[in-house]
């Protein structure tokens, strides 16, 4: 499913302006607030749901080659974080909903974790 479509379905607010330009197809996702865990297990090209909103999330997203990061529970990152994400080509979104709700909705849309059989 196109990232823009996911954002629309979940009423996500985009933080990075250029995110719509590429609009990748996203089928995989992950949720975690431990960065090493994200690195180890988040699927390349996937969408990450997290409550961490600092600069290192962007670095990890870039290294793990994630397509997008969704900040749950209205955790708003600094301007510098958003700017950096824009440079690195990582799309950022924010939502007032808690991670649990967001992941549930992503699952309903057919997004799965890597290696999921169902």
């Amino acid at each position: 499913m196109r990232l823009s479509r996911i954002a629309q379905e979940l009423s996500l607010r985009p933080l990075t302006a250029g995110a719509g330009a590429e609009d990748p197809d996203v089928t995989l996702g992950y949720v975690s607030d431990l960065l090493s865990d994200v690195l180890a297990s988040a699927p390349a090209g996937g969408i990450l749901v997290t409550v961490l909103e600092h600069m290192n999330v962007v670095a990890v997203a870039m290294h793990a080659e994630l397509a997008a990061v969704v900040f749950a529970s209205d955790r708003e990152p600094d301007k510098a974080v958003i700017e950096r994400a824009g440079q690195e080509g990582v799309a950022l979104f924010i939502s007032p909903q808690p991670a649990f709700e967001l992941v549930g909705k992503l699952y309903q849309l057919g997004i799965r974790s890597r290696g999921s059989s169902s």
Partner: protein
Amino acid sequence: MSILSFAIRSGDYAQGGSASKGLKEQLKKIGAAPEIIRRVMIAAYEAEMNVVIHSVGGRMTVALDEEKADIEVCDDGPGIPDIEQAMKEGFSTAPAAARELGFGAGLGLPNIKKNSDYLTIESQVGKGTSVKFRILLRPQALGERMRNSLHIAPAGCRGCYHCLFACPTRALRVRGNHPEVRSELCIDCSACISACRTGALTVLGTVGQLPPGEGRVLVVPPALLSQFGPVVGRVLDSLAELGYRDIRVTQAWEDALRGAVMLLANQVSQPRPVISPCCPAAVNLVAARFPSLIGHVAPFVSPLEAVRDSLVGKRAVFVACCPAQRTALDVGRLDRNVEIIVPSVLCNAVMPLAMSQRGGVSWRDSSLQTGETSHQTSSDMNVMRVTGMQHVVNVLEKVEDGRMNDVTVLELAICDEGCFGSPLLGEDPFIARQRWVDARRPADVGAMAVRRKMPLVAKAGLRLDNDMSKAIDKLAKIDILVKSLPRKDCGLCGCPTCVAFAEDMILGKASRADCAFFHEGTEHVP
């Protein structure tokens, strides 16, 4: 080779990841595969963040060539008191500031290990830590030109040609009492060493000193312990007297591998029989002569490599019983933490001690067990054990023909009775193995099977020419040439077969006059 260096500042979370990002750009430029880049990035980022979180500052140095990235991340303190503990998932000493940012879950070092091909850690409390790891950029290159650990001492050769015919891949040539190995064909087994009567063929590093025990772990195969009579416990006692920090017997890792292979064999999707990679030379044989069976080989490393994996951060001395074991240990050696000796070096040191002691078995009595252990739990499974080169080749041919599908697990060992039959050991393999089976021996010490990081690939073997059309021309010439040879496969020319002789002639490595049946002036030999 290009060397890159990046400074890493302590506590600078906002800039964390900038060193590894610089590396990523370089890797893209040299055209590394995306999956490989991802592995490098994850390992490098974790190592970099460890310096940011834990240390007073440090640097990352990367040595890049077309095959590998060697990365060293070192800092100036405070050092890791217990590396083994630090390697455990979930163990962390990260400060609250780091934890609040989502670090400090105790996954950093394990993540590095998972994503790198080789890893070593050295640390001194108060001085600093050095984390070195290697990631192969072209893993397939390893299979293309495998290294060998066969050592040739031409002075000992008397030109008996026994080795020529022993080699299962026809990798040897003997020219005027001078054996040569074609490393593109050699599978690092022990067949030629067994056949050699004069000691001209042996394993690299035969001439070696026993490294001192201080601070080192000694890793020994069961076969070494049963060389001195029915006194296995006493031999262990004697080894302990050499002053090593710890002694690990590889049996536990062999058992762990067997368990893991059996679990795997339970999966329906696995082609049967599942071949256990317990003998690295047997795995090489599959890769060289039976590439269609590569999918049958369980994706684990050999027991000896698994032991090395469990000793990250420690100095260790390994006893290698064949060239393949030595190569497996050697290929990933990043520093001097791993030292490799041949059995005789240790046997010579331990013999006087083992022979002088009196009395019964004492070695850590409480932890000694009797007899076969893990084998028995698996008796309900269909495991077939095949040892000895000729039998292994026969069985693999049957597997290739699809006539072994009723066997679930196949354990292959090139030497008779496995490492008990190593030509580097003196005792008869059947006697040595029985002694070990009967002996009380150390209990398992949390040994685990380790998955392969790179898939097993076919060994390319002999290439007539890099240009395929030229190679085809050569093939045709060889065919014609072979018809003019006696086809006695006598070996007198120094090649194991007339076909090999024809190949060598076309490759310019032999001349027609080398053939004993060739007479000047005749086109065809009788």
